[in-house]
């Protein structure tokens, strides 16, 4: 029953995507929303059912790929780690689809999209949803790789959705960079299979030391490319050419999380990551935090600002995971919790920017001002998002950041205090800047650009409200789930 549900979670959105692509107008939207809603409901049910344990089952068999571990290659696996990602992709996916039903259209002052273009959008979006669910419930590296590459393709298609020169270039760049990551992943996979004859996550622990180091470095490179970490961070800001819901979903909440999810999987399956790799991962995460931070102050486009913030937050997740690799369970849990917490916070922020662009046609920080008067709900959502993303209690990211910091302190030695100081410093600067930007855009005198508008239509406003609640409640769902992760 549970296995069926898990399989259906991949099938339903895929089929829904095909239907939405085939239909036109309202029925296309209807198919998309229905499929996303069904997937989200199934995900919630499945998570609740396996809560506290894990569910693994075989679905098919590929004997020529089965190795000595003798576990089937095609199957499903739902454990607390997967549940976290599953909830993020399905719930935020549903909200994004609902939001998109109004965002795409002729009323959008930022980008008018004629109705004939809609089915293509929903097709790729739902296909992406299906492949992300696939990533979350993959029981082995091979299947994970398959869905991983699928998300790359969807991402390319959706970034280039507007088909203008800039978006085509941005899509191509994203495709190339993430594909390079995919190649690293593939090589790691081949080494793993050649050596152990298995694609199991646990097989990593069976590798000899030197080879394990190589495999982990390759996996790390793959994760960096996918999660837009330094030095592969340049594709993400340019991917902001995508429609805003896509930026919110793919490039903040879901697709980039596939990268960090891969690391979380690799680390937590057997806890076999070599310490050196863990160190490098943590150091690069901190470096990423600060490099991303330096870009904050020069951004005028709200979406690009949020993109850099996303890069920094993925750094947080990787930092937490590296703490796990170095021996701190709390830090690892914090990193995983950050996936869901940041997902909701950043989706809120992006969709707020989408709402602003929808009604004003502008995303420029310097051109906007005094929006709170006309768009109170968006203003509230934006501030909730800012506070949640920068880790102000009681909102979501506070809890995950706090757990990551706890992990850092738990490690002790010289690393703990240094990380503590660096992370808190980054938090403070990011917080100050984001609040400053929030004040600039929403408070103060109204600028001409910001003069004529009101909150976005109910479908979009409703999504914003849901996300605000999500920002508050994400830890309430996440903390009980992550407490089962550990050795």
């Amino acid at each position: 029953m549970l296995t069926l549900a898990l399989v259906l979670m991949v099938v339903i959105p895929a089929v829904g995507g095909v239907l939405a692509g085939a239909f036109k107008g309202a029925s296309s939207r209807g198919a998309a929303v229905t499929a996303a809603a069904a997937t989200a409901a199934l995900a919630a049910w499945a998570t609740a059912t396996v809560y506290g344990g894990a569910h693994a089952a075989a679905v098919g068999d590929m004997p020529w790929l089965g190795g000595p571990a003798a576990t089937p290659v095609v199957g499903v696996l739902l454990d607390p780690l997967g549940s976290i990602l599953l909830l993020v992709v399905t719930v935020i996916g549903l909200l994004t689809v609902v939001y998109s039903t109004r965002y795409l259209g002729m009323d959008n002052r930022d980008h008018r999209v004629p109705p004939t273009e809609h089915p293509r959008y929903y097709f790729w979006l739902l296909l992406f949803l299906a492949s992300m669910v696939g990533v979350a419930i993959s029981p082995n590296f091979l299947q994970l790789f398959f869905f991983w590459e699928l998300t790359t393709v969807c991402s390319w298609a959706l970034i280039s959705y507007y088909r203008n020169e800039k978006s085509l270039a941005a899509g191509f760049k994203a495709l190339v960079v993430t594909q390079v990551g995919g190649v690293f992943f593939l090589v790691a996979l081949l080494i793993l299979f050649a050596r152990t004859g298995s694609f199991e996550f646990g097989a990593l622990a069976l590798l000899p030391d030197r080879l394990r180091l190589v495999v982990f470095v390759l996996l790390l490179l793959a994760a960096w490319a996918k999660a837009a970490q330094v030095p592969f961070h340049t594709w993400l800001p340019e991917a902001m050419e995508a429609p805003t819901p896509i930026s919110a979903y793919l490039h903040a909440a879901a697709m980039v999380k596939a990268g960090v999810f891969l690391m979380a999987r690799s680390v937590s399956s057997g806890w076999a990551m070599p310490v050196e790799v863990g160190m490098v991962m943590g150091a690069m995460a901190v470096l990423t935090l600060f490099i991303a931070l330096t870009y904050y102050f020069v951004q005028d486009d709200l979406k690009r600002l949020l993109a850099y913030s996303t890069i920094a937050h993925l750094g947080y997740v990787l930092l937490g995971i590296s703490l796990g690799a170095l021996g701190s369970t709390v830090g690892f849990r914090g990193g995983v919790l950050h996936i869901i917490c940041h997902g909701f916070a950043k989706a809120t922020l992006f969709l707020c920017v989408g709402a602003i662009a929808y009604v004003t046609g502008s995303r420029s920080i310097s051109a906007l001002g005094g929006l709170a008067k006309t768009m109170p709900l968006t203003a509230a959502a934006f501030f909730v998002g800012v506070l949640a993303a920068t880790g102000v209690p009681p909102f979501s990211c506070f809890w995950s950041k706090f757990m990551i910091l706890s992990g850092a302190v738990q490690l002790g030695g010289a690393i703990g205090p240094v990380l503590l100081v660096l992370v808190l410093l980054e938090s403070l600067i990011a917080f100050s800047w984001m609040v400053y930007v929030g004040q600039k855009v929403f408070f103060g005198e109204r600028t001409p650009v910001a003069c004529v508008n009101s909150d976005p239509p109910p479908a979009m406003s409703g999504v914003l409200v849901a996300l605000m609640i999500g920002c508050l409640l994400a830890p309430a769902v996440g903390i009980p789930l992550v407490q089962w992760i550990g050795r």
Partner: protein
Amino acid sequence: MTSALLLQTCVLLLLGGALVSLACARNRALAGWVSVAFVAAACVPLARVVVNVFAGVAEGETVLLALPALPARLTVHVDALSAFFLVLTGVIALLSTLFSVRYMEHFEKDTVAKFYPVLLVFFASMVALLVVTDMLFFLVFWELMTLSSFFLVIFERERKDSQRAGLKYFVITHAATLCMIAGTLVLWRQAGSFSFAALQDSLGVLLAERAVVAHLVLFLFFVGFATKAGVLPMGDWLPDAHPAAPSGVSAALSGVLVKLGIYGLIRVFCSFLPVSAASDTWGVVLALAGTVSLFVGTLTALRQTDSKRLMAFHTIGQIGYICLGLGVGVACLRTSPTIAALALLGALFHAANHACFKACLFLGAGAVLHRTGERDMDRLGGLAASMPVTASSTTVAALSISGVPPFNGFTSKWLIVAACILGGLQHPLFLVLGLVGMFISLVTLASFLKVLGAVFMGARDESRSVKEVPLSMALPQVVLAALCVLLGVFPRLPLGVLRDAVASAVRIEVPGADALLGTGFGLGLTAGGLALAFWAPLVVVLALALGGALAYAIQRAGAAKVREVPVWTCGELDSAAAVRYPASSFYLPFKHAFAGIYPALHARVPQFPAALRRAFNVDTWLYRPVVRAVDGLARGVSRSHVGVPQVYLLWIAVGAVVVVAVMLALTR
């Protein structure tokens, strides 16, 4: 009902009130009165809890929620110290909400949806943080309080100065919270739990084993709490933030919010810190910090002409007194518990008194602002005739804050200064600090005489018609002014209660109330058979009444006729505004003497070196060159493919020759 249940009721009522007032925000008056009703209702269970605590009903900690992932537990426990601060919160919350109902008419264009709900959440967070005994949840509620007060500070969002004040407030206090998070985590590593008791033990262990780390942790907590309390130099946010908020909120900010910083300081430095050489050191640090802020804060206040900004600077000054008392108390804990208890009593009593008179002063300034639209004291004058209730309440509060006997401010300052001088017998530094305290109390007086002289007295401006504020705004002021008098004249009852609070806060045996306060009708401290210090407000009031009556009898002895006459201005007839002595002219030579005491620093957006940013831009120096190189290589290769068969044949021939040559070279 247990305390935990009562407190949950209280917090839920406040949060429910927030939702209801949000729902009916379209009707301004209704939303206001609903909020008042909910706050009043929430005060009932709160009062019950407080009464239980002071009646000595013992209750253990109640666990409301557990987070095994960390692990942390939301535990609730009210001791006498918490109860004391709960009283402050309840009283000020109720009065400031009541005041706000009519005051908010002032802001016609702003919706009250951004006011009452936030205000109630603010109160709820304060109640919650006072009763939890788990550091993680304490920090959560602490920051919830910060962020809700931030939205209250930037209520007038269109104003640039409000925005600046709000940002400054939020950033500085958030930085302080991050310090506290760091300190907490270091202790947590040792303790493995976030409960106050465990952190307390781990601080003791740390102090014994790694004293440097322990002092660092204490420093982090000191910065964290002192920032919120408004102790200079960290309290620099306060003079901007308090005036920016609507007056009812200013009263709550100055009355309660900054006191919670003091609450935190007491928890850390009295409860967590073991009585040892370390507590002596930190006591001196606290006392010095307090003296710096009372000195600088009050002298800077003297130079202000904006009434609310002036009061905000005085908040810094008065918090300095509290901090001074606290520091003397902590420093004396080991050597002389009696003086320590006296100083801590003084600090807590001053906290209560400051809540009364500063809230009253802010409400008074708000009332003036409400009726005249003016905060600049240079442009006000002679309001006592048209706003008698506001004028008399403000006068009482002003005399209280200046420490004029027999009002409450004097009693608490007396306790603090007496503790300073008596503590100075062992530690001479405190003598100087006590003298500075006495001097600054005069500066406070000067500053508030200026307020009274410039705003309420002086030449009346007949052209402006000003009425007294409505009852709902006058009542809170009158209540607070009455409290100022009552607490001042009958200090034994509140001090007896505060003695329990001190006893619950410190880790040593505190002398009983009789030993501390004497047994007579006033306050008297005797130690070792030697009479040390006395203050009997009732006797002095009685003597003053008798002396005054006698003097009045003399005054009326000649039955002189009373006649009202116009002011004599050397025969010139000028308008009231022209002959008025404006606030900025007061004490000019004195102000010049202390002009450089509060330097202004201007923060700028960090200019990041462009070279470094270029270095971070991997695209330009790594990826694009690589792509271009690959591209160029491919072009080069494709250039050789010209499509002419003869050329290809030539290539084949050349290739064959090369291959043969190589083969020959290798095989030979």
